């Protein structure tokens, strides 16, 4: 399956969905004017990926900031990953946050409570 690669901008995150290199990551900021347009291709890509995922998938979230509209879309992405997990595939999420950033840590904890799949919090300095 072809990779989906989106470069970061001032208001949208970098997206790497690259099965060949087993690299799945969202990083940077997310405050687009129109979340549906930005995340639409991501959701479509995940729908396709769900049909034949890699043996093991680790999706990294390494976001420094996201607005409330993006928070809903992140939940939608996590639900999509949860579906893949429910199909019996080995898939997990790593939620990375800067050690001092207690709000980003809390956001990760809350997502962990909302979805039923492995979600690990990882802090960095």
């Amino acid at each position, binding site marked *: 399956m072809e990779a989906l690669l989106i470069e970061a901008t*001032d*208001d949208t995150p970098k997206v790497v969905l690259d099965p060949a290199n087993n690299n799945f990551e969202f990083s940077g900021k997310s405050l687009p004017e129109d979340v*549906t347009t930005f995340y639409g291709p991501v959701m479509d890509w995940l729908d396709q990926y769900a049909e034949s995922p890699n043996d093991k998938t680790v999706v990294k979230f390494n976001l420094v900031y996201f607005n409330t*509209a993006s928070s*809903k879309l992140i939940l939608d992405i996590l639900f999509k990953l949860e579906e893949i997990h429910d199909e019996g595939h080995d898939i997990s999420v790593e939620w990375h946050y800067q050690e*001092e950033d*207690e709000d980003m840590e809390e956001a990760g904890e809350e997502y962990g*409570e*909302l979805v039923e799949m492995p979600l690990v919090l990882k802090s960095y300095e």
Partner: protein
Amino acid sequence: MEESNDFGNSPFMEFVYSVHENMVKNDIMLIYEGEVNQDITKTFTSLTQKNLDEEESSLPIKKRVYHVMVECLQNIGKHSDNAESGKPEIPGTGIFMVSKSTDGYFVVTGNPVANSRIDEITEMIETVNQMDKDEIKAYYKKKILESRISDKGGAGLGFIDIVKKTGNKIDFHFRKINDIASFFIMKTYIN
């Protein structure tokens, strides 16, 4: 020469000076009146971020100011109504202000909204204002599950998120403009 003297004594010059004086006195970091589109949002947030990097050491506070600014600016941009027609106006127009206090920051916005929306907005804010930390956490989780992205591109979580992140109540007031619209003023404190 006469002309320039008149100009120098004009009420407008006095106005400029009083704006300056009031901004210094009230520690205003940023003030803007006009259309709020995505470019304005990006410019102001990165400008304030730069200023905060120099003077504020707490990362959570810096990020909360940033957070509240984005939500408030996107609120003006997406949820303003025209003061004459009362119909939605995108991008919206309003006033936006960030100021410093002894131990925190204020983010203040003002924009016209149709009078018919006053009750709905009041209820949304009062609901979250009366919740304690645990209640708001639970309410946020309930709402994010129920939320659908609206035609305007919002998730309907802005007020909840502001109170949840800042731990402070939102101060607000509707100042009547005419029979159709009021000026919705909202003040958030981050400390």
